[in-house]
């Protein structure tokens, strides 16, 4: 019984390489070169699937990506679901299962649905399952729906790759037209990218017995492929599907199993100067009663199995057609010794050139198939004369049908180029291209090989469209969409209920929304709608063609960029030291990884942070401040530029001096805060918050290049040219001295907010006196190549003073104690500098600066303002969650503010917080109420500063 349907000879299979495989638990044998489908047919397996909704038995109907019926899931290494059996190359040990049936397609319990078929027409779920509620039905519906099992683990080995490519000509499809186009372009020296979805080149030639200038067509293919491979300027991929056509001639190709180490699939983003679509044509189904029965197959597929895979899918084949192409199929079958029991042709007058192909075969003009006999395998077809005469059963074990050919225009349509309905071809064909693109061969509606190869004569195709069989006495359901079980009556129902747009029909019936995207059936749905509404197909139009052309695994699309490749990350030279010393690393702004805190073994977050804070307030600490954004500015107009982008005045700074400033956006929102230093007469250095460095750079460059092109300001980013270790705390000056520097550190000669250059610990350094903690603080800037060394020396010099490395958690606590602004906390897009009690930073002298007018305008509206205040929980040990709302009297009503920060203050021995509170500045001393879910926390409103209000320490 092994391979009982395999022909004795012929086919593009390697009979010396038998392959064992398993399907639904039964083991079979096939050959290298088989697909799962061809191997199953060779083994005489008829029922290979159950349908989605009615669980009707189904067989294999096609031979390529158009296959609507037989979807399988693969187990083991290449586990994946919902693969058409016709596109799964056979390999040793392949283990496949039909999707969506249990226990097997031969005996499927879901089949009981067939009994209820009449109760579940299109859209039935919109009308039912309403009582008592959807939740009662949803779980079972969900279990029934869905096809293959969901993937539970990633591939155990190998990886995916995505890459860029560039071509002068990209050709989709390596059939006769594609190869011809590739040869022409390659010979002209163009960079050619040729991609074909099949396992080998040749397209339709693989399936047919044709000759090109007297020789077997496949010899011509072999020569063409060989010549292309000999050329440096050609990239030729098989197993590579062009699945998306994007804007500006960007096309996406999915290459399966490339011959490249451990790469599973590879995604190519190809930018092409010109695109040639040689995607061929897809045969479409005939629509008649029982057209889904196992054994009802596309004529071209029956032909392909005989010629390419040497498989007799049946012994007695009947054909049903409305065009000439099926006659070549009949001829091939007869030549192969298969009995052709009948050719049913819906046309009354059959062209001579068709009849000449099938001398002696029984041809029935003006006759259609009106039903199939046989449940799990076809036994006879009901031949019904259109004239109305008596219909009769004709024996057959396979019915091969051809409803005509659709140019494969998916990519053409994706590119936004237009389609038009060609009456002669009875198909939608490419019309106007809107990108540098042309269609050739069958994809352009040219179905004649000679013309494609050497511009020879057009041979007749002679189609007379038949969108659906409509004769009295027709038996059984006539399916338009085999995969989603959509019948002609479903479409009629949709139209009857007023869902009469083709998009409505698609959504209401789900026709064409399957994995095959209706490659064989959509046109018949459009035809059925057209017939019912009495419109030409052009007016009914097609539904939108959407990427992907065929399903693509997400792995290939993601390429290498998952996990650590997804978001860039940045380190400082001290990062490793931080990790080695037990730092808990945080994601800081701008993708920096920073230490959050340095817990001792067994120590919790709060204890560690308090310990670090105490060091800063009472001893000395060091902080890696390298991520701060820094820019050097130079040029004649820097002073006026800074005065424009900062709300306060910078132009009057003296060399060596610096000043804190606020940057606003034009609509008055706070963009960033930072410090500007004047290095010398013409050179300036500004620092930005870590997270906003890029935004500020973009902001400055945009202003200079678009608003003030004639201002002379030259900006150089030096964030990574300077790293810094910030020594902070009462003992900071002692540590600086211990580090040994030639800079005079006395407060008189090196005051707060000033800048010095010199040597620190023998390293060239820029030292800046700024403070983000309110304590005496020296920011030592050195080149990154010196940073690790500086850090070690700081730890060494600081050891006698018990210096501690501190992280961003303690910095947060310390800045809250001082009421220093943190953009991430206090600035939420609603407050301005006045609300934050920083009116002093808003220059009264300047007539104009960014944001000035907008803030004036906003405040003139007299709307409620949320103002920054300090809050002290009445219970000193009461922590308040950051972000908690304040409501009037703590009642459950609209908020009047929120807690922006709340920390345990070591200097106050008390939880302290900052809040934005409606009209807060006037409410100092009052009690406000934090509203939590279960309780209300009363807090006293204070000034937003809890430590050294006069700022003596930071100036010390």
């Amino acid at each position, binding site marked *: 019984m092994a391979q009982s349907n395999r022909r004795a000879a012929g086919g593009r299979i390697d009979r010396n390489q038998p392959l064992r495989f398993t399907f639904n638990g039964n083991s079979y044998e096939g050959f290298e070169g088989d697909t799962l489908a061809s191997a199953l047919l060779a083994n005489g397996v008829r029922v290979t699937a159950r349908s989605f909704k009615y669980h009707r038995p189904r067989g294999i109907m096609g031979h390529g990506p158009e296959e609507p019926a037989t979807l399988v899931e693969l187990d083991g290494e290449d586990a994946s679901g919902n693969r058409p059996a016709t596109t799964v190359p056979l390999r040793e040990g392949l283990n496949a299962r039909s999707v969506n049936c249990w226990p097997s397609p031969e005996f499927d319990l879901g089949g009981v649905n067939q009994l209820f078929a009449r109760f579940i027409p299109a859209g039935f779920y919109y009308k039912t399952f309403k009582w008592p509620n959807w939740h009662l039905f949803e779980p079972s519906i969900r279990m029934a729906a869905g096809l293959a099992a969901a993937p539970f*683990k990633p591939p155990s080995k190998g990886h995916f790759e995505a890459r860029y490519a560039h071509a002068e000509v990209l050709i989709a499809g390596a059939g006769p037209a594609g190869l011809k186009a590739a040869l022409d372009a390659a010979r002209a020296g163009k960079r050619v990218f040729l991609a074909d979805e099949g396992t080998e080149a040749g397209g339709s030639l693989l399936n047919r017995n044709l000759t090109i200038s007297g020789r077997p067509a496949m010899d011509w293919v072999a020569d063409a492929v060989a010549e292309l491979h000999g050329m440096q300027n050609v990239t030729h991929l098989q197993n590579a599907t062009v699945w998306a056509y994007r804007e500006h001639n960007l096309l996406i190709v999915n290459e399966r199993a490339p011959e490249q180490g451990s790469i599973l699939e590879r995604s190519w983003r190809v930018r092409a100067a010109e695109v040639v679509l040689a995607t061929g044509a897809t045969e479409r189904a005939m629509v008649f009663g029982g057209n889904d029965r196992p054994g009802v197959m596309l004529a071209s597929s029956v032909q392909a199995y005989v010629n390419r895979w040497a498989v007799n899918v049946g012994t007695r084949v009947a054909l049903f057609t409305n065009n000439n192409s099926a006659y070549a199929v009949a001829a091939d079958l007869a030549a192969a010794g298969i009995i052709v029991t009948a050719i049913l042709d819906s046309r009354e007058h059959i062209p001579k050139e068709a009849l000449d192909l099938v001398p002696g075969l029984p041809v029935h003009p003006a006759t259609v198939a009106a039903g199939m006999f046989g449940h799990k395998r076809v036994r006879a077809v009901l031949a019904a004369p259109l004239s109305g005469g008596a219909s009769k059963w004709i024996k057959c074990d396979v019915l091969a049908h051809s409803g005509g050919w659709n140019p494969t225009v998916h990519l053409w349509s994706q590119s936004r180029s237009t389609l038009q309905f060609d009456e002669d071809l009875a198909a939608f064909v490419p019309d106007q291209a809107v990108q540098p693109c042309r269609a050739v061969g069958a994809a352009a509606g040219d179905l004649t090989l000679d013309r494609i190869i050497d511009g020879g004569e057009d041979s007749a195709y002679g189609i007379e469209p038949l969108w659906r069989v409509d004769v009295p006495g027709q038996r059984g359901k006539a399916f338009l969409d085999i995969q989603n079980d959509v019948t002609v009556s479903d479409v009629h129902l949709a139209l009857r209920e007023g869902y009469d747009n083709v998009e409505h029909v698609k959504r209401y019936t789900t026709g064409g929304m399957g994995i095959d995207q209706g490659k064989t059936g959509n046109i018949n749905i459009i035809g059925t709608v057209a017939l019912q509404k009495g419109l030409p197909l052009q007016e009914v139009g097609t539904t939108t063609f959407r990427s992907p052309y065929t399903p693509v695994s997400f792995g290939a*699309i993601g390429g290498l960029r998952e996990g650590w490749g997804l978001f860039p990350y940045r380190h400082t030279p001290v990062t490793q030291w931080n990790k080695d010393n037990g730092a808990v690393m945080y994601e800081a702004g701008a993708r920096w990884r920073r230490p959050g805190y340095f817990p001792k073994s067994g120590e919790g977050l709060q204890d560690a942070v308090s310990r670090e804070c105490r060091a800063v307030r009472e001893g000395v600490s060091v902080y890696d401040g390298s991520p701060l954004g820094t820019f050097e500015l130079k040029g004649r107009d820097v002073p006026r530029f800074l005065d424009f982008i900062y709300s306060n005045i910078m132009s009057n700074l003296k060399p060596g001096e610096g000043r804190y400033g606020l940057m606003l956006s034009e609509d008055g929102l706070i963009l960033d805060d930072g410090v500007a230093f004047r290095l010398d007469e013409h050179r300036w250095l500004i620092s930005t918050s870590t997270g906003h460095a890029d935004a500020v750079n973009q902001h400055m460059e945009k202003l200079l290049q678009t608003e003030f092109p004639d201002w002379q300001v030259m900006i150089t980013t030096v964030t990574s040219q300077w790293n810094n270790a910030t020594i902070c705390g009462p003992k900071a000056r002692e540590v600086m001295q211990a580090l040994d520097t030639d800079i005079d550190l006395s407060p008189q000669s090196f005051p707060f907010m000033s800048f010095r250059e010199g040597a620190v610990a023998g390293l060239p350094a820029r030292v800046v006196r700024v403070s983000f903690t309110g304590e005496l603080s020296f920011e030592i800037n050195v080149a990154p190549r010196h940073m690790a060394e500086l850090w070690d020396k700081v730890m060494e010099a600081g050891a006698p003073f018990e210096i501690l490395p501190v992280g961003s958690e303690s910095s947060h606590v310390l800045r809250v104690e001082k009421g220093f602004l943190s953009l991430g906390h206090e600035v939420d897009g609603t407050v301005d500098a006045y609300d934050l009690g920083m009116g002093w930073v808003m220059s009264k002298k300047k007539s104009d600066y960014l944001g000035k007018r907008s803030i004036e305008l906003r405040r003139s509206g007299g709307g409620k303002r949320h103002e920054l205040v300090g809050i002290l929980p009445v219970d000193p040990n009461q922590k308040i969650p950051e972000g908690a709302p304040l409501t009037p009297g703590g009642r459950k009503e609209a908020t009047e503010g929120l807690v922006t920060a709340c920390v345990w203050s070591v200097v106050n021995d008390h939880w302290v917080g900052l809040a934005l509170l409606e009209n807060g500045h006037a409410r100092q001393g009052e009690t406000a109420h934090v509203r939590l879910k279960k309780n209300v926390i009363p807090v006293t409103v204070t000034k937003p500063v809890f430590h050294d209000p006069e700022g003596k320490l930071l100036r010390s």
Partner: protein
Amino acid sequence: MMINIITIMQKYSVFSLARNALSGHRNWPQAWRSPPLKDSYDVVVIGAGGHGLATAYYLAKEFGITNVAVLERGWPGGGNIARNTVTIRSNYMRDESIPFYVKSVAMYEGLTDDLNFNMMHSKRTMVDVVQTWPKLRELRRRQLTMDIYGSTYEQITTEEVRKRIPALTGGGPDARLPVICGMVHTDAGVNRHDAVAWGYARAADARGVEIHQQTAVQSLLRGADGKIEGVETNRGVVKAAKVVVAVSGHTTTLTETAGLKLPLRTMNLTAFVSEPVKPLVDVIVNCPDSGFYFSQSDKGEMVIGGAPDMGQSFRRDIKQHVFEDTVAAMLSLFPSFKKLKLMRQWGGHLDIAHDASPIMDQTDVPGLFVTAGWWGGYKAIPAGGLTLAHLVAKGAPHPLMAPFTLSRFRHLDFVMEAGTTTAR
């Protein structure tokens, strides 16, 4: 008049289905009529999308205004409502927004009965997967403000997150962005977008509202007094003293014909679905730090959304690099999806206001109303339709929509709502 119209509408139920089954489903009536276009109406609604149809329905149902025409360039429900990811939630941040969406979610939950059309509303709950501390702080802020308005948002541990989403196997302690915790929004759900559009259309029609397909409004007509007078369509002039513009991305295209300037820009937002597979994920998964979210439809497809594209666009297309970012982010947290396949993807254009919050108001052109600036507007359809109908009928904004009127721009009092998108 109303009465006999209502009798036209056949009640959908398992019984009517069975009855029709026996007659081969030959007797189902049209879901909505196709009446001749009159030359004037009390109210013309432009756009038979979610917001337009809902507005028309509530005008008829709540305010007895039934002489209403909904003019649609294409077909009902063919715009953004056919392109969104059907995520219904109320986890917003500000007092201006939360109550509005709480109302909308509640209305959605009753919509199947109200419209006698199965919305397949599935209260799945949404789980926000938190990967950075600043995001957690923002979500905690939302949590406590939402609580004031009765919207639920609970923090859960990473372990609980993984228990609720077994497929979430990425984001471990050594990952680029480890999962810190989750926030659970039990009010969130999904339903069928076609059912929403068709249900509103059918129910509005039953109350006398006329729906006119293939009727493209080319310009707005103003009288000498500057008031709105009607619209010019491809089928001639239609008069109305009140005109509602509910056309999503095309708002400014129309309002400019009335010499009106609005702070709106049209952008493209895309979504995609996987092949259908057996049930794997029961909740709506939202990963704001990674910039994507998804849920599994009843058909078994993963319905996935990500960040909007840069730049204005009326071309419903896919930006490959934006799409790849979304996929890579998804695979980082759901590595088993590498073998899952993309089945379909699409784009939709929507207009975004200067402050990214919606605009519902009567414009400076008396009688001309707009509902615009919706992104994530699907969840707002019931409340948006109800409150706009209120404004059209009574001439004063419904309290829930007051924060979203145009007046906020007069003094730049923006509604800065961080909860409108997961875009990173």
